Structure formats: structure tokens, C-alpha cells
């Protein structure tokens, strides 16, 4: 689907795009980058370029001998019936890759305090990714990070010490950034946020409750 392109000013850094194209990003980050590419023409072009580089590497890699039967078994399957995989389209503010994880259904929000809501899309050892819903003027609770955190704005905007982030903008934060994002006036801010470590909320939720809320 061809979405309206807004003026995106915060892009996916090149190294992350390369890592995504190479398949080296853990799933939570890959979901955010795939969603950003869905919204951002510049990063789609960069992704295409990294695929081109991958193609060159594939061309130059040393080949391996195949079993004799491989080719015929592939040809035998060319006409086999195939169940088409569902294609998840963008729905409202949610890009196709997010709709795929939501299995085509609207997000099921859970309150986490202060009017902030979340919908966890996946949580594992390698990290977690969630949708966040932040009412205008509301701060995402002051938090610091253990590692990499990617936040993609899907609706509204937020501002923090590093600038303003509108629809399609991606904020990349690491343990060196101690920031307090606040949703701007207007529509509630909806973000897709991935982290490779549990967020450490400082004020709103005591650390003891973190396992309970999975935040």
C-alpha cells in the first residue's frame, strides 16, 4: 500500500539498515526497522542498496556441489498447489509489519499508569517490542536503558531533550541517553518501541512491580 509520505527527519541509521538487510537484527528491532522502511522512502532506498550489496556478495560466494536429486525435486514441486500466505496491509496508523504481528486485529491496550497504555507484541530474551499510547502532555515515565532502544512514532508526536519526533520518525537511544519523552499537544502519541533489555522505569512503577507489568 502506498501511504502518504510525511516529512520524516529522523531516519534509521545506516548501520542498522545494513544489519536489518543482512538479517542480523533481533526480531524486536527488525520489526521497528521494517515498519520504518514501510513509512520512509529514503530508508527504503537505502534498504534496496544494502540488498544490492548482499546480492553482490551472493554472486561472489564460493558455490557448493548439490545433490543430484535437488534440481528434479524442485522442478517436481513447481506445479504443486500452494496455500497463499496472508498479506497484511497497513491499517490506520499501523504499518503492515505491525499488522502481521497483531494478526490483522486491532491492538489490545493495557493501562500502565498515568493514562499511558501499552500492547506488548513480543517479549523474549533477545528483547521486547510493544506499542505505546501516550496522551497529549503526558510524559513517558522517566526511564533509562540497559541497551539499544528504538522508538518509531505512528501517530501524534513526542519531544524530548534530543528533539521533536513526528509520524514516521525513529528515535535511536542507548544507555548513554537519559531522556524524558513527552507527548506533544494534539492527537495521542502512538509509538512502536523495541528494546533489548527491560526498561528500567525510575518513578512511576517501583522496580519490584516490573515483572508484574512486564515493563
Amino acid at each position, binding site marked *: 500500500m502506498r501511504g502518504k509520505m510525511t516529512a520524516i527527519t529522523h531516519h534509521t541509521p545506516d548501520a542498522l539498515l545494513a544489519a536489518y538487510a543482512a538479517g542480523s537484527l533481533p526480531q524486536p528491532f527488525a520489526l521497528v526497522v521494517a515498519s520504518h522502511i514501510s513509512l520512509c522512502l529514503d530508508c527504503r532506498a537505502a534498504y534496496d542498496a544494502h540488498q544490492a550489496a548482499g*546480492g553482490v556478495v551472493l554472486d561472489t560466494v564460493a*558455490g557448493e556441489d548439490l545433490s543430484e536429486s535437488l534440481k528434479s525435486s524442485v522442478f517436481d514441486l513447481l506445479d504443486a498447489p500452494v496455500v497463499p500466505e496472508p498479506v497484511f496491509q497497513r491499517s490506520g496508523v499501523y*504499518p503492515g509489519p505491525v499488522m502481521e504481528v497483531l494478526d490483522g486485529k486491532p491492538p489490545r491496550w493495557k493501562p500502565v499508569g498515568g493514562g499511558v497504555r501499552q500492547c506488548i507484541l513480543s517479549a523474549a530474551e533477545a528483547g521486547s517490542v510493544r506499542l505505546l499510547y501516550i496522551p497529549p502532555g503526558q510524559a513517558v515515565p522517566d526511564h533509562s536503558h540497559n541497551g539499544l532502544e528504538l522508538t518509531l512514532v505512528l501517530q501524534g508526536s513526542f519531544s524530548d531533550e534530543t528533539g521533536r519526533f513526528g509520524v514516521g520518525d525513529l528515535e535511536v537511544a542507548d544507555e548513554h541517553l537519559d531522556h524524558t519523552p513527552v507527548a506533544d499537544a494534539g492527537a495521542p502519541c502512538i509509538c512502536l518501541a523495541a528494546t533489548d533489555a527491560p526498561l528500567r522505569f525510575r518513578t512511576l512503577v517501583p522496580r519490584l512491580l516490573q515483572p508484574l507489568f512486564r515493563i
Partner: protein
Amino acid sequence: MTNSSRQISPQTLRMLAVRDARDRAAFSELFDYFAPRLKGFIMRSGTGSGQAEEIVQDVMLTVWRKAALFDPQRANVSAWIYQIARNRQIDVIRKENRPLPEDLAEPPGAEPDASQILAVEQETGQLRDALARLKPDQREIIEKAYLGELTHQEISTQTGLPLGTIKSRIRLGLERLRHELKDAR
């Protein structure tokens, strides 16, 4: 037209024959070129021969089944198959469903533009030359990165990675995408 003397590569023509005419002879030639490379590529990351062949089979079947998604104005054949192979490898080895961007739909009734196809091929050739000119240790890093042998942290700390040529490929690719989108309005 600087490209008028050039011809679309046999590889692209084969893939277009598969896409538009379901041409099995063309697919057979693509198989002979790509299948051994794919197997080598997949085994580089530690997958055994048997499982590598299963992945090669899946990849080549995807090339056949999803040929309609091949757009030579955006990607050359190797780049397109590279991405299919990485997706399949991740789905199989990590047992994850790899998140993929939305497809950029072809503008309805879009005429294939030979000059755009040639531009993609020309840029790919330049990228290939640039990689071939790198010092061996630098080239090894690039190969490892795109073979999926480096973590994302390792890629971030490799200063040699964002090649100048990739940058120019990005710029030209962006111009093409803007052009395609303009046509679609």
C-alpha cells in the same frame, strides 16, 4: 540516453521470462547459477549440507512462486534472491517470522522502463567493482556482514561498512522510487 547501447543482462531477462511467461528453461538456468551459490552462502553460517539444501529448495521455489514480485527497476536478480534467502534462513534457523516491509505496489499499468532496469544493473556493476577493489581484510568484513556473520553491534562499530558506492546507490534508488511514486499519483 547514455544507456541506449547497453542491453539488459541475460540474468534479468531470464527472471522476467519466469515472471511473465512461467518459462521453465529460463528457471532451469537460474537454478544452475544460483542454487550452488545459495548452498555455499547458507553453509557459511554453519548450516549443514542437508539442511542447506532444504533451504535452497525453499528459496528456489519462492523465486518461482513469487516471481510476480520481482521488480527489476528496483533490484537486480541477485539482490532479490539474496533477500529471499536471508528471510528463509532466518525463518528456519531462528524459527522466527522475519518482519518484512510492506511491498511497494507497482503503479497500475506501469510500463516497464528499460532505462531504469539498465540503471539498476549499471549501479550493481559499480558496486561489484568497488567491492572487488577493496583491500582483502575490508572485503572480508563486508562479506561477513552481508552473510549474516556479524552482530548488529559489530556492524555498527565497523567504520568501513557504509561504502561511498552504497551511498550513491541509495541516492539513485531514491530518485527512482520518487519517480515511480509520482507516476502512481
